[in-house]
């Protein structure tokens, strides 16, 4: 039996998440800390940052400390996947932190579902992402988007490649100012501008999402993605989460390698996202012949700041002893205190920097 009081926030989260993923039949995937640098050079687009810690191995090969787990997992599959592979991991990765610009060790846990995935597997992964956040804290928020739907819609209304970067940047920042200028100068049509504006709004119920986009769903391609997105969000009972789930297309414009659903999770009290994932068929096709992939990662480096389990005391009981007390008697008394569920710290005098609930003196 694990005493959860002893676990740090991130350890407690890992423990609960591993339990959750195992209960859905995901098996743990353990990998080496190092990977050949070449793998990351060939797939730079998939990485959040192309800055990687490298070193030369004794045989002259250039190795890297893993900046990402997903690439290593799919790289180890070979050219084909037997059916559908479901696995989870708990690894440290090494990336440049956005805030400081310095390398940082980040504890990351997550899961991947690779192979001939169907609508069910995509829904299951999204469901597990929601459950992961729920397990960590009830005050969570998960934002969803669909990269395939967004790309199809932009292509349908005829956004040209020339202005695509600017349009995606506007959606990413939720800022329509630059697009308004383009509308005024005739570089965007009224319909194109209305679509971009619709992309910058968050939707917390399916009805308002449908209302905003139904007029733009015309082509077969759009309908295919729209129906898939609808089926996934209905599959996780989107509307029953009452505001905890939100459709936010700003996510899609920020992650080029996703081809289908994209999502990001937040926990109240942590200023950055703690969960990120989606369907990345385009990337997986570079590695295996036939199949798709969906997965997510939970970033645990911010959990230490999260005030979930800050105890009031460092130790429950201080047991004060003196030099004449016999060691076996001290241990016996300590065990007696522990049997009540208290933690005990044995000292000869009261410590200054430790918070304690009570003091017990050894009976002479």
């Amino acid at each position, binding site marked *: 039996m694990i005493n959860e009081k002893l676990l740090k926030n991130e350890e407690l989260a890992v423990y609960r998440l591993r339990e959750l993923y195992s209960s859905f039949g995901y098996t743990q995937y353990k990998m080496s800390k190092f990977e050949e640098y070449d793998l990351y050079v060939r797939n730079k687009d998939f990485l959040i940052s192309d800055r990687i810690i490298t070193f030369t191995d004794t045989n002259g090969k250039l190795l890297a400390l893993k900046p990402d787990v997903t690439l290593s997992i799919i790289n180890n599959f070979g050219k084909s996947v037997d059916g559908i592979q479901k696995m989870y991991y708990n690894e440290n990765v090494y990336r440049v932190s*956005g*805030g400081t610009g310095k390398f940082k060790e980040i504890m990351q846990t997550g899961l991947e579902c690779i192979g001939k995935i169907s609508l069910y597997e995509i829904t299951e992964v999204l469901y597990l992402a929601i459950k992961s956040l729920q397990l960590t804290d009830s005050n969570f928020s998960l934002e969803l988007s669909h990269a395939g739907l967004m790309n199809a819609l932009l292509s349908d209304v005829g956004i040209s490649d020339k202005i695509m970067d600017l349009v995606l940047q506007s959606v990413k920042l939720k800022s329509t100012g630059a697009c308004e200028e383009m509308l005024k100068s005739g570089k965007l049509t009224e319909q194109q501008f209305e679509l971009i504006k619709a992309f910058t709004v968050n939707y917390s119920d399916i009805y308002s999402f449908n209302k905003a986009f139904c007029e733009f769903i015309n082509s077969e391609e759009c309908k295919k993605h729209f129906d898939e997105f609808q089926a996934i969000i209905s599959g996780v009972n989107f509307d029953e989460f009452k505001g905890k789930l939100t459709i936010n297309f700003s996510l899609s414009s920020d992650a080029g390698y996703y081809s289908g659903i994209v999502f990001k999770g937040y926990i109240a009290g942590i*200023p*950055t996202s703690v969960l990120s994932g989606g369907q990345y068929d385009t990337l997986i096709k570079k590695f295996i012949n036939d199949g798709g992939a969906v997965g997510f990662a939970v970033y645990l480096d911010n959990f230490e700041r999260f005030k979930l389990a800050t105890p009031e005391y460092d130790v429950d009981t201080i047991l004060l002893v003196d030099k004449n007390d016999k060691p076996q008697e001290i241990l016996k008394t300590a065990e007696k205190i522990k049997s009540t569920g208290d933690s005990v710290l044995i000292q000869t005098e009261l410590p200054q920097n430790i918070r304690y609930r009570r003091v017990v003196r050894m009976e002479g």
Partner: protein
Amino acid sequence: MEFINVALPKGRLGEKVYDIFEKAGFECPSIKENSRKLTFENSEKGIRYFWVKPSDVAIYVERGAADIGVAGKDILLEYEPDVYELLDLHMGVCRMAVAAPENFRDDKSKTLKVATKFSNIASNYYAGLCRDIDIIHLNGSIELAPILGLSDVIVDIVETGKTLLENGLVPFETIVPISARLISNKASYSFKANKINEIKNAMEEYVRNKND
């Protein structure tokens, strides 16, 4: 009650920005009192303001100490914080420009020496032009650099161009127009979208009416 924490930039621009919040219906009278307080709140409106150095606003917002704030587009382009840029307030309007002595001619056979406080903006601009440059990062008195031969050109904010002119410099190219923007932390927006949008929409309406 759920509060919205607002980081305001210290100084004259900040005072004008606060006026927009006030006119938009999110007033906090205590902010105008002469006191040593660091934070000011109106619990009825659920809003709390604090003044920070203008270049720090984006950091406060990105790190979640403030839910929203007002920062110049120059700071947003230079530091690229991971925030939403919800509204252009059309205040503090100026431009990021390349300036040089009047007789300057760009010799493309040589590396261009560029002095600036905005290394990221300058690097991105010249990378887009495929121009080889040497960035000289300075923290102030940028105009001095070409005069003393430290650099060929400078990349800096130009408002009226008067300071440049007084130092014998002229703006050659505009890199990007600059103005104050309402920004939001992404996690805060995820949890408090309704309240943040209420503030944004009220401010947008006020700014639009004022500019019409």
